[in-house]
């Protein structure tokens, strides 16, 4: 069978793995697809390539398509998130100077307790902090904001600045930023470069934060339902392969190659296993589900995730909240995802919306095949978001 080529823009990050694996391990080919993976230099570039039709599919920050639906930022082409590509996977890190100050007050870098980390950081930086994030519309900013809202960090001046991830370590070394929130491999690269120490995994702030999505133009998804189905299925099978512990070594080796991320496979392995070296001194921390590609219905694009993002953006940008949530409700296309995976044996939750933040431990819920276990999705401060009540 001759494969149909589909162009895909992506940023060279560990969480682009499902797309890279779909192409390299033959999951795309099995669906008659050839993914033409085009690395992009910036998130604006990924967005523009998708919006202007240079590519049909993109590895995109989960917040971007919602922001575009709300008319925030420059471009307003309607995009659809047809699957979630990854959940969690970011790390918050600090400069060596802050690391030293934190150790001086006896902070132990438990890499777990967001309350404790926020309190300690506010104590050593009363004059304020500048925190680098990859993009003005990103889960990184949401995590920092949630963290700030519920810890003593709210009492100090906090500036959030956009810094391209490959330049994060340098910006930290030059004192341009004091801390960062970034996806792998860039947190570990800062540790490797002896310029920073990791303070918290993103999931210490929110257990189940949708990080990257499989994005298409809404119009493309409507007019190419067959291609869309083949795309969603091949990426879903790639995520299942990634979730198998037996695949880890091969996945780390593959992703590290020069044509993909071009970093040592040992660094990639840290994100895949959740066993992270948090400081140049070599302290190790073990974070289960540090970066989740598949389990706990990780790929399911919950409509409530899109609404949660819209709710946050609307509050911060002064937009009408209920109107924003209505406009954003159809960005996360659980319907297209269900249609594509129907009959593949993929188990899917019975509902398409959930109360975000309500699970503090794994729970079985109704699914298309009986029961599916959802992982914890709690926020560290216990807040919940009910998409039906706002």
């Amino acid at each position, binding site marked *: 069978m001759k494969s149909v080529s589909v162009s895909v823009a992506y940023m060279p990050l560990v969480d682009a793995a499902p797309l890279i694996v779909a192409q390299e391990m033959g999951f795309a080919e099995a669906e008659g697809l050839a993914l033409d993976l085009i690395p992009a*230099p*910036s998130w604006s570039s990924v967005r*523009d390539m998708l919006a202007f039709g240079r590519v049909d599919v993109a590895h995109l920050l989960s917040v971007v398509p919602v922001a575009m639906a709300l008319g925030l*930022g420059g471009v307003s082409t309607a995009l659809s998130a047809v699957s979630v590509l990854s959940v969690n996977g970011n790390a918050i890190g600090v400069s060596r100077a802050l690391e030293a100050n934190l150790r001086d007050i006896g902070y132990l870098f438990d890499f777990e307790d967001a309350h404790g980390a926020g309190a300690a950081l506010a104590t050593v930086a009363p004059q304020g902090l500048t925190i680098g994030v990859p993009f003005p519309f990103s889960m990184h900013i949401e995590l920092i904001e949630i963290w700030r809202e519920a810890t003593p960090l709210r009492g100090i001046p906090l500036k959030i600045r*956009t810094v*391209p991830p490959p*330049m994060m370590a340098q*910006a930290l070394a030059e004192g341009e930023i004091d801390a960062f929130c970034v996806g792998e491999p860039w947190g570990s690269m800062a540790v490797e470069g002896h310029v920073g120490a990791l303070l918290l995994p993103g999931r210490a702030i929110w257990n189940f934060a949708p990080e990257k999505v499989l994005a298409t133009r809404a119009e493309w998804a409507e007019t190419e339902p067959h291609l869309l189905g083949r795309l969603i299925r091949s990426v879903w099978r790639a995520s299942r392969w990634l979730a198998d512990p037996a695949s880890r070594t091969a996945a780390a080796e593959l992703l590290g190659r020069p044509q993909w991320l071009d970093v040592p496979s040992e660094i990639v392995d840290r994100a895949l296993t959740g066993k992270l070296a948090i400081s140049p001194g070599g302290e190790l921390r073990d974070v289960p589900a540090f970066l989740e590609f598949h389990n706990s219905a990780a790929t399911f694009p919950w409509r409530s995730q899109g609404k949660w993002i819209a709710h946050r953006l609307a509050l911060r940008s002064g937009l009408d909240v209920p109107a924003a949530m209505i406009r954003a409700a159809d960005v996360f296309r659980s319907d297209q995802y269900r249609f594509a995976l129907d009959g593949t044996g993929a188990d899917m939750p019975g509902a398409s919306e959930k109360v975000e933040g309500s699970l503090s431990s794994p729970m079985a819920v109704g699914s298309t095949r009986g029961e599916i276990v959802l992982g914890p999705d709690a926020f560290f401060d216990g807040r919940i978001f009910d998409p039906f009540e706002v």
Partner: protein
Amino acid sequence: MRTALTIVVVEEDRDRAIAIVDALKDEGENDVHVIGNMTGLARRIAAYSPDIVLIDIDHPTRDVIEELTLASGPLERPVAMFVSGAAGGLARAAVEAGVTAYVVDGLHPDRLKPVIDAAIARFQIMRQMRTELDETRRALEERKVIDRAKGLVMKARQVDEEEAYAILRRAAMDQGMRVAEVAQSLVTTAGLLR
């Protein structure tokens, strides 16, 4: 007479920056600044309060400029992203041309067009020159590898240089490969046998 525009060009490569500045100067008395150091980019740009920021679309710092275009950015006034405005065709062309421009809201596009056109043309020429330079460099590399492979063949088969090259060329034709590729595999393999 039109008033001068303040234009900031973000470009690390000095020669490219000079070329762009020259192109912009040809369009009239514009106030052009070049930023070649990416440290603290947002702050540096804001210090000039530019009417236009020109940056290579392939540069990772585009996301930093993106932040400046948002209402709450350090420019402290609304900035429109030129490529996404009403001029949709231009947006696409700009994206494909490898140039993007961010323009302060309210600036008349007619004033801007020649500036942007010139910059686009200049970017394209510079990009083409860069591609050609890369190709030349690659050709030189291949030349070196072929010379080494020829040396290996001469030594192993006791032939002269011309005959050694003929042997490499025949092998390449037989295998449907380029001479440089055959030479490369020979050099790599010979390294293993040492």
